[in-house]
């Protein structure tokens, strides 16, 4: 495979790793401000990370190697995701398609890792969180694939890079009913996958309401650092993807230094915007009861399916 896209991919990864804590920081800070608190500042997540890395991890007795390996696997999957999704530049890798199915599978690999992590300690909460998390990601899967199908119809390919490029070159297709519906569906998916409101409350401290947090109850020190970083990466990468789908401008079409830099800056802008929007939305929203979640996801599936039918009209 040619080297340029590979380099770009690595650049993307580093950019994503750099941005991820900031994105989370921005959301938390915005929430704090909207809720009338001062807030810890945008850099707090980064500081937390540093502190955690310096701490000795504690592991529950009777845990298996899974507890050791899972956080790293989770992190790897997130990093790989960052490499596959077009964030800074839309350059398809020759042998590894930036196919959304591949991306989702990589994502799910991480999901499975954290689900097993939750089970490993043998505490009731871990199992609870893992079960709920897996159920939700199972229900999310149809929406993802159908919406990608809808997006790929006009392009004739399921490679994300090509889809984004196509939308950048023909902005008309962004506003097309198919595109809009598909993106909305995707947004819901992203919220579900990253455990944000209204599906999961990332800032809860009540075990019984936890989904994502419940699985990392047992983690501490660097283990927790990897898990946190990984989930932040997920959030920012998926937000970045949505951003590039909605506002594809600035995404680099070639591997030159200029375009990539521009792309990175554009990405920063989009991420900041989306983070603020997300926080604002979360403030305005209450958490859904767990067993109303399927309704939401069914709704998103319907949107995606409508997107498909709509795409037939335009295509």
């Amino acid at each position, binding site marked *: 495979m040619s080297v340029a896209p590979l380099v770009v991919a690595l650049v993307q990864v580093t950019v994503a790793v750099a941005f991820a804590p900031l994105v989370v920081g921005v959301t938390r800070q915005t929430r704090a401000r909207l809720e009338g608190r001062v807030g810890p500042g945008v850099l707090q997540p980064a500081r937390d990370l540093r502190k955690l890395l310096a701490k000795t991890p504690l592991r529950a*007795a009777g845990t298996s190697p899974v507890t050791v390996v899972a956080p790293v696997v989770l992190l790897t999957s997130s990093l790989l995701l960052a490499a596959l999704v077009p964030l800074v530049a839309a350059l398809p890798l020759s042998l590894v398609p930036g196919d959304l199915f591949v991306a989702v599978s990589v994502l799910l690999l991480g*999901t499975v890792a954290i689900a097993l992590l939750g089970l490993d300690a043998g505490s009731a909460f871990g199992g609870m969180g893992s079960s709920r998390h*897996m159920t939700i990601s199972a*229900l999310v899967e149809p929406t993802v694939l159908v919406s990608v199908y809808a997006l790929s119809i006009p392009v004739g390919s399921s490679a994300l890079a090509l889809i984004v490029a196509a939308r950048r070159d023909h902005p008309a297709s962004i506003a097309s009913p198919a595109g809009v519906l598909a993106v909305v569906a995707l947004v819901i998916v992203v919220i579900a996958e990253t455990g944000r409101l209204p599906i999961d409350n990332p800032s809860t401290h009540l075990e019984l309401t936890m989904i994502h947090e419940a699985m990392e109850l*047992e983690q501490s020190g660097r283990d927790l650092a990897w898990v946190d970083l990984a989930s932040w990466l997920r959030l920012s990468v998926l937000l970045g993807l949505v951003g590039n789908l909605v506002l594809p401008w600035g995404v680099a079409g070639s591997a030159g230094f200029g375009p990539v830099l521009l792309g990175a800056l554009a990405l920063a802008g989009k991420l900041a915007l989306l983070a603020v929007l997300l926080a604002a939305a979360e403030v305005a929203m209450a958490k859904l009861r767990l067993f109303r979640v399927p309704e939401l996801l069914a709704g998103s599936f319907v949107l995606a399916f409508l997107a498909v039918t709509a795409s037939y009209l335009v295509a």
Partner: protein
Amino acid sequence: MNPVAWGLLAQVVLAVCAVASALATRGHVRNVLAGSACAGVAGAGAVTGMSVLAGGTVAVQVTTALPVPPMVLAPDRLGGLLMLLVGAVGVIASVYAIGYVHGASASRTQWAALALFLLGMQLVPAAGDVVAFLLAWELMAAASTVLVLAEHAHRHTVRHAAVWYAVMTHLSFVLILAGFAALSAAGGSTSFAALAGTGTAGAGATVAFVLLTVGFAAKAGLVPLHVWLPRAHPEAPSHASALMSAAMVSLGAYGILLVGVRLMPDAPTWWAVLLIALGAGSAVYGILHAGVATDLKRLLAYSTSENLGLVVAAIGLAMLLRTHHVPGAASAAIVAALLLLVSHAAFKATLFLGAGAVLRATGERDLDRMGGLVHTMPWTAATFGVGSLGAASLPVTGGFVAEWTLLQALIHGVRPADRVVAVVVPLTLGLIALTAGLALVTFVKAFGIAFLARARSAAVLGAREAPWSMRVPMVLGALGVLALGLLPGPVAAAAASAVGAEGARVAGLGGVELTGVGAVLSPAALVGLGAVVALPALVLVLALARQRPATADVLAWGCGGVRTSPRMQYNATSYAEPVMRIFNDALQPSRDVVVTHLAESTYHAERVRFSQRVDDVVEARLFRPLVAAADALAERARRVQNGSINRYLGFSFTALVAVLLVVAG
């Protein structure tokens, strides 16, 4: 005499040797001798399959006492692929059996049946005409029934399972027989070579197709003819379950391929839609039941009918797309079907062997009583984990590549102008995606509950790792799963050539390129990329680990440090509870909660018992009423035969008058 002929001969001879050694020897010697002979049979099958795939052909004729054309053994490439698949599974299952069998499952009958079962399964894809096909088919059916019966003296459930299995498998035979009869009547011959390309117009062909499809669907365990699967698999010894679930059901799919691709290629749209509906329906139904199952082998059985459902759906998709002139995507779909078949064989064999090892070590099939086995049985845990990854079609396993191929076919099969395709394809996509998602839950549950956390019953604490003779096959199976996932190119190319489709070829690093749709996937490259991006993190991890090792003896979080008892863990039932609740209407579980209150106050419960059973809806709503109706009818018929000679003479008298009126009229 060419290699293929030699291979066929070797299979028969070795099978005879296996039966002989099973009958002649006893004890451990029998296990070793017969086991290796069985492995030999399977190996010969695998080699034969390879040489057929390599282009070898042969037509062995076996004459019968009847004035019909002689039976023919003439495997084509597709048959070769299946022979290879069955043979490979057979080898590891036979070796595994040497260490696994004990008590009833080590009897001479069981070993002989195993050998004949393998032979039958390898002759089915070799058959070149109807009679030979049916012969091998019935040999397979009879032998497998014997295998299911192994434990009949110990559990009453075995008998019912075996009767269900025997009747369902005979139903399948009867349908296939009728279907082939209709087909040969329409095509005017009984040899597949002559029947190939039979016109699909006319009632004869339609009847034949429907009968054959349903018959093969019954063998492939598709809903609603799957009822034998969840009954037979848990009762059979695990090596037999592995063979039945990984190899035998694949032959059902082979039958559908034979009919839909080789014999009657240009299928009408509704045939294809029928197959897709059948397949997608079974996939969702199967995975739902697998998701809520707590018996490990029952779970695996339902997942079998899920995977075969995906295969058949892919076949139907290929037929649909070919009929609607999307050749590229069609060839991708057919390749996907074969990849699914192969990878399913690999991971399902691994999983059943793992389940067998657990059963052997703990005597448990019930997930709710397992846990923590990763500490006592690391090898089994590792192989079962890899198998689960495959079943969840995650990278980097064969299941992942297969599902990717299928989705490529779906995405590139888009034809907005064509209404049928426009409706069918996205619906199929949605169903397949849902299946994939639920498969994820199912196998996280299976692995996580069985092997992680803490033991939920005493039996599990004393578990011992399986002996080497069982470990090696399990490891081989796991390696197979990974190999299919890392280097799918050659397999895909072979699959494409097997169905004569220019669908796939090898692309860089053993990756697969779907020429039809111009998509490339090189899992090896993906792994490489992953390694590159993960490298810094790994380095950091190792550095920190050396600098500051973890302390691994703290209490798990119990809301304030109370050490939770193992009974407070999530178990399989509770893990599946959300799925159960969401799909309540489809699964219709029967729950009951018994609350015993304290004597002092009815506000405090002393004990709460919760029990839940999930019956197979199809069995309860379709088959049981059917059986009951038949029995009621039979009871009424018995009353007609009431022993009065006058009535009997009355029958004859009526017949006489009737005949007189007929002949004189």
